[in-house]
């Protein structure tokens, strides 16, 4: 049994750029079924921490263990495909000239087609799989309030709409763990509620765990079971959301006054 082990365990992760210690010996863990928050001032190393854990950047030191397997040094796509750990980007990125639906179908393909060879198939099986994905995509599109623009090229959508596509993409496949980098930035308050609901739903019903970077403190306190605070690359504190926002150090470094 591995279930008592944490889902994700990162130990002593460090990354420097020249003189800047972007991530400085950070260790965290995410439990199965948990929604954890990662907060910290601008430039405290949150995104870099994501980059190093998901294979986009190479950490200088540290290990990443996912579900009992050491994935340090795996490539971004391997971590996504084999590790079933997905991440979103802080920068708004979409497949710009493809429409919303295609954007989501691409995101969904990864577990539906087990091998590269299978993706070259055009048979009935392949078609059915794609139809299934398309249906799922439509549901998510409705959730995100993008129904009216679903046939628009993603690049022509507003900033917030593109951010929503990113979020919906994460939910297309059913991964074990999703790392979200500021999913609510630039999203209108009403849709934020829906996004929050969707996260909670995915967590409860589908058993997906989350690690969320977010500057919207209300959201963090309402969804996260545990919050980790980074400051200047190092872990400052970790604890329950309620405690964290009362913490004097956090108030000084992050919340401001």
């Amino acid at each position: 049994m591995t279930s008592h082990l944490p889902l994700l365990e990162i130990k002593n992760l460090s990354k420097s750029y020249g003189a800047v210690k972007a991530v400085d010996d950070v260790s965290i863990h995410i439990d199965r079924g948990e929604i954890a928050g990662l907060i910290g001032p601008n430039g405290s190393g949150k995104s870099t921490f994501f980059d190093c854990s998901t294979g986009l950047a190479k950490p200088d030191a540290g290990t990443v263990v996912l579900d009992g397997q050491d994935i340090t040094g795996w490539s971004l796509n391997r971590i996504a495909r084999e590790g079933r750990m997905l991440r979103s980007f802080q920068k708004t990125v979409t497949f710009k000239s493809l429409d919303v639906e295609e954007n989501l179908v691409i995101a969904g393909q990864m577990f539906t087609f087990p091998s590269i060879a299978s993706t070259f198939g055009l048979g009935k099986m392949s078609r059915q799989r794609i139809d299934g994905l398309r249906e799922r995509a439509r549901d998510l599109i409705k959730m995100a309030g993008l129904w009216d623009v679903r046939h628009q090229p993603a690049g022509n959508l507003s900033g917030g709409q593109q951010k929503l596509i990113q979020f919906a993409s994460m939910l297309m496949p059913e991964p074990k763990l999703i790392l979200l980098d500021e999913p609510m930035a630039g999203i209108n308050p009403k849709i934020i509620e829906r996004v929050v609901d969707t996260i909670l739903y995915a967590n409860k019903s589908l058993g997906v765990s989350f690690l969320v970077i977010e500057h919207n403190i209300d959201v963090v306190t309402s969804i996260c079971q545990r919050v980790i605070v980074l400051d200047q690359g190092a872990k400052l504190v970790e604890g329950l959301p309620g405690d964290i926002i009362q913490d004097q150090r956090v108030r000084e470094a992050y919340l401001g006054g």
Partner: protein
Amino acid sequence: MAGNSNLSIRDLRAGYGNLDILNGVDLDVPAGQFVALMGPNGAGKSTLLKTLYGMTTIKQGSIDWRGKNIAGCKSRAILGEGISFVPQGRCNFPVMSVDENLQMAAYTLRDAKVKADRDYVYDLFPILKKRRATLAGNMSGGEQQLLEVAMAVLQRPKVLLVDEPSVGLSPAAIGIVFDELLRLHADGMTILLVEQNTKKAMEVAERAVILRLGKVIWDGLPKDITHDELGELFLTGKMRGETEAVH
């Protein structure tokens, strides 16, 4: 009609290519006012700012600024008229250092005050000073956002069009940015702020304008609208208990 230094928008229809996004926007902004533009995602807020800054195709309508119709002018000319713009999303020079980016921000200004201004923004955002030799593109998302706000400040505009400056900023940084906006406003700058952080926006702005589907559907004082009403407006375009939108 309105005075000389008003920004007045009449029946503005604009968009991208053949696609119209703004469907007849009317808006008067007296000199020195601080307006928050809000609305759901895809309402056309950014499009409106871009249109004011000459970056979209205008089909119809006028934009009067200091007695001159600037609809259809090039961005450079509009900048020359004292209007500057902080777009949504990344807008800096990624492989130039922070210092050089700030230099570029004052590209059109060539006076001695430029340097003093730069020192001022460095004091305002110490993190930028710390990173002054870092390439802008290598900084964190929030740091870049601060840089972009700083770049707009350096242009010393009369009208500042700013699109979601709080995105990606920590609560502390949001505080600094909004305080700076308030200070600029106090110095007489006209500000059009687009925000999704409605709570914060309504705290600082004198007036709230709500856009939906390319039209102004509500225009009034921030205190006249509650948060729940705002959410309702975003979703349905209607206020709770009302049948017709105001204005």
